[in-house]
């Protein structure tokens, strides 16, 4: 099962981060955010921080999968898990890029 986890974790982490940032975006644009005394700038900072944390987590995962301690002993699983870790890193950067490039709540 460890081999399956090596393959499954990176993209699952992307999905979790993507959903979490989308949820955070919903919260930032809601009345609840105003009611808590927070403004849009704070929202932008929160979303950017979440994005940065997601990227950092993916980088750590990639390094871990490259390291002898966590890398798979099977060449096939090692190849697939690294490909997927790179995919997840690219996906995290690309799909959440809008947090710094587009208007938040228009």
């Amino acid at each position, binding site marked *: 099962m460890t081999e399956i986890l090596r393959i499954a974790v990176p*993209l*699952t982490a992307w999905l979790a981060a993507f959903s979490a940032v989308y*949820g955070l975006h919903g*919260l930032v644009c809601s009345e609840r955010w105003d009611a808590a005394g927070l403004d849009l700038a704070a929202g932008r900072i929160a979303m950017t921080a979440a994005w940065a944390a997601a990227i950092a987590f993916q980088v750590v995962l990639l390094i871990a999968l490259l390291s002898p301690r966590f890398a798979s002993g099977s060449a096939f699983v090692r190849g697939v898990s690294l490909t997927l870790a790179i995919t997840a890193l690219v*996906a995290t950067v690309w*799909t959440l890029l809008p947090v710094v490039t587009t208007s938040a709540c228009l």
Partner: protein
Amino acid sequence: MNALRRHRQLERIWASRPGWCGKLTTVNNNDIGLMFLSLAITYFVIGGILAMLIRAQLATPRSVFMGPEIYNQVFTMHGTIMMFLFAIPLFEGLTVYLLPKMLGTRDLAFPRLSAFGFWCYAFGGSLLIFSLLAGIAPDSGWFMYPPLSSTLGSPGINPDFWLLGITFVEISAISASVEIVVTVLLYRAPGMSLDKLPIFAWYMLIVAMMILTGFPPLILGSLLLELERAFGMPFFQVGAGGDSLLWQHLFWLFGHPEVYIIFLPAAGVISTVLPVMARTTLLGYGWIVAAAISLGVLSFGIWVHHMFTTGIPHMGLAFFSAASTLVAVPTGVQIFAWIGTIWKGRPELHLPMLWILAFFATFVIGGLTGVMVAMVPFDWQAHDTYFVVAHLHYVLVGGFVFPMLAGLYYWLPHFTGRRRYFKLGKTAFWLVFLGFHGTFLLLHWAGLLGMRRRIDSIESGSGWELINLIASISGFVMAIGFALVLIDLLANAVVAVRGPRNPWQAGTLEWAIPAPSPSYNLASIPEVHSRNPLYDVPDLPLRIARGEGYLGDPGRGVREILTVEVASGRPSSLVIFPTNTALPIVMAFVTGGLFIGMLIKAYWLVPVSILIVTMLAVWWAWSLGSRKDQGPQPVGHGLVLPLASEIERPPGWWGTLFLLIANGVFFGSLLFGYAFLWTVAPNWPPPAWLEPYLTGPLLALGGTVLALGGIRFADRALRRDAGPWLGLLLSLAGLAALGSAAATVLVRTTHNAHAYDATLWVIAGYVLFHAAVAGIMTVFLALRAAGGYLSARRIGEVRVVRLWTDYAVTTALLGLGAAWLPGVLT
């Protein structure tokens, strides 16, 4: 023992009973697979007839062929049948039939579950077809958007057929997925490590995981909408704190992965058939596996691209637009790997190859228009027009139907044992291919000219008349083509001459089996050393028949099968499978009572059905296991393995784990819905939050300690060969306390007062239900212990109940915590 004698003995052990009764009681993967395939094709014919009715209606302006009421039912049922009753069951059937053979095993992991899934599909589908014949079919579109589908827009029974019938059918998809995941992970030929899995098995593993995580949001949405319709719980009614957008989120959380759930099995067929047609091996196996996994997961991050016109802020649109463009990359990787496979091989233009080429031509166009609608500004123009209708048919017909036809023609000699003799197939191919493009290519233009989806007639002078006339004529040409395909398949299956076992010279294990397949699939289980075992050992079929593999001696007279370690493929245990039984069909029938009770508002039938289903489930589980430790058993080649019932994590434990993953997604979707309403719904906060009180949290905390501690105490006692009674009693008391904690939420809220109260009712009901299930399982465990079915070695059942108890406790803490938190904070 010679091969013939072995065959006769194995047939006696594995075959279903003779006659029609055999079909009702069979649990054999060959029977169930063929039954799935036959019924799915029947539904395809029905869905196709409905499509022809649609094209007849739209062939000429202001047509009076159908009124709007009937037309709405026809297009709703066309989409519903094709998506739920045809596409998914078709690949399930193919998988149920083929997967064990490809993996080098004798059946799927849980044969009775296969049969139960089939009967749920058959009964659930029948409900929908009945509604169609009775003129009370669902009529709100296959996506069932409220308020059109709620009592405000559809006060009749029509949407209830959809919500309940489809949920009933989805039991089948979830059952099949649990089966497929556990089978691919554990039930393989020895030596078949992950890098040697047949590529189709990888695809189906991914698809099954997608079903387990993609279907629960829809099941939840259907449940919530049905609760709203039946009991006035206003989840989707804005005036009472609900939001109809919640439905769209839940539906498309399922709906977009669904597109890939349908495409990926077809991609698995292409990856299997194409190399054989090209006389080579698959180029980039590892890349294809990585691309398929990427596609499977990325497809869960693009559901909002179906909601670009709902007023979501730009940033949200940009997230999903970016993700939508990203899925084109792994799709492209697969397409290029297939083109590379053709390039490096020596392709032969047999009929399966023709269908694959038709797939390329059609699916690439569908993919490109998909990238177009992934662009927000374009989607705003094209949304809800025939451009989208044309796009989705290019993707689904090109990406699913054509490859599956390639697969059906490819495996036809394996299904029938006959050589394709009649040549209608090529004529049929051209009629379907040309008819399809004649129908849908021009409809892109109709959409760009402004023709809206779901309209029941077109106006003269709209500029769409000629396009629709051509589309309708082409549609009928396509229908004639599909009819010829069916005639061709039937003729070749029934009256063609006998053919060789492996006419395509393929390398995968299903071609090592006599055709048509015997009930036991493999006379002995071979050891494999590559992805194409038949290329390594050409006389492997003979060796298998001679019993030179594992389990070649059927002397014990029971259905035997091996499990392997997930990664390495080393043999790990011996499983004894259950025999033919009417239990699955009876249980599916009684489960149907639950849905029919809701449908006809005979609510007394619901608890009665639940009670009988519970009794049947206990009977089901009771028939497994043994009263004494049997120790390791010989399986051939000098290897001795423990029985699966005598290991800590038997296949049932893995099945439970994956079922609970699906269940966890359901629960997560429920919490998402709660958070969505709290954040977005206009009429929030509710008039009053649930007031803080101590009884509930104290019961929950006490229950947690007792339930978790008790089941572990029982486990430890059994491992010391002591009685588990005290531990089980403590666990039962803990679960009762958790249930009581949930009940305190129910008595403090009114189910239909506000969407907040309604949500709390569902959360508390969920916790109560799971505490009850874990409680029943704990009582069952006590009875099993008393009956002598548990021991230090036979501990697997305790581990299954422990898993359920842990799950019940975790979801109770999360759910009840979410219910109490707003009251505490304010």
